[in-house]
């Protein structure tokens, strides 16, 4: 009871501090992670030291980085310790959307965008946007971003106090406050 109360009364770490602690955990596990990254996935990767992430990379929640082929299981009656492994590398300024899956041997070029739910394998060029399963190149990431920058439904709402943010967004979509 007192333990719970003490925990509740103790100052909570800021979101930035929690995020930094998360990055530290991933780095301690062996991932190479550059600077300025925002990573919202846990990555239960069994070989984290095979993962390298560049600078200013954004990774949404639920993203999986797979560094081994589990089908090796089928060969363990003949080679009990067999593993088939592959590195995953993510270049600078890449963004990876929610629940994307990167398979062993995936290398994502600088500045590319991986769409939510994409299943990616092999080499992804620089500055492309890919979507789907299997992931397919749709076009240049820079075109997508320039278009978003000018889009009428893009708002400067991030970081506003929550009530202001909500009011701004609801007003933009012409929706009444409830």
């Amino acid at each position, binding site marked *: 009871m007192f333990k719970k109360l003490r925990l509740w009364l103790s100052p909570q770490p800021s979101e930035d501090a929690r995020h930094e602690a998360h990055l530290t955990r991933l780095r301690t596990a062996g991932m190479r992670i550059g600077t300025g990254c925002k990573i919202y996935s846990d990555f239960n990767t069994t070989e984290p030291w095979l993962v390298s992430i560049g600078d200013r990379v954004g990774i949404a929640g639920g993203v999986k980085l797979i560094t081994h082929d589990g089908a090796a299981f089928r060969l363990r009656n003949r080679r009990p310790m067999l593993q088939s492994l592959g590195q995953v590398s993510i270049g600078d300024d890449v963004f990876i959307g929610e629940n994307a899956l990167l398979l062993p041997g995936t290398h994502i070029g600088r500045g590319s965008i991986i769409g939510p739910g994409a299943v990616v394998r092999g080499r992804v060029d620089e500055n492309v946007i890919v979507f789907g399963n299997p992931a397919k190149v*749709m*076009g*240049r990431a820079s075109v*997508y971003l*320039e*278009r978003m920058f000018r*889009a009428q439904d893009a708002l400067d709402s991030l970081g506003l106090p929550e009530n202001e943010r909500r009011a701004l967004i609801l007003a933009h979509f012409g929706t009444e406050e409830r």
Partner: protein
Amino acid sequence: MTAGNKLARDAVIQALVEITGRAADRINTGLTVQDLEIDSLDFVRVVQLTEDSAGVRLDDALVAEVQRMDDLIVLVQHAIDQIGEAAHQVK
């Protein structure tokens, strides 16, 4: 209509046929991107297909300003003309 204009128009319409699934004669390039119900990802795809088909590379910032498909045709035609002028100067 110049050869460059025809090539540009054909490239854009061909890309729109592929993305929207509409027949070429049902596509009005005077319509806006919104009227054609092309979302941001489809737009990127239209640009890529158009560039590949016309053999040009468009400026990202100019492409981002496109409202109607006719705007895109003008950009493609301009890029084709520039290639033609450069080839002429080399000669």
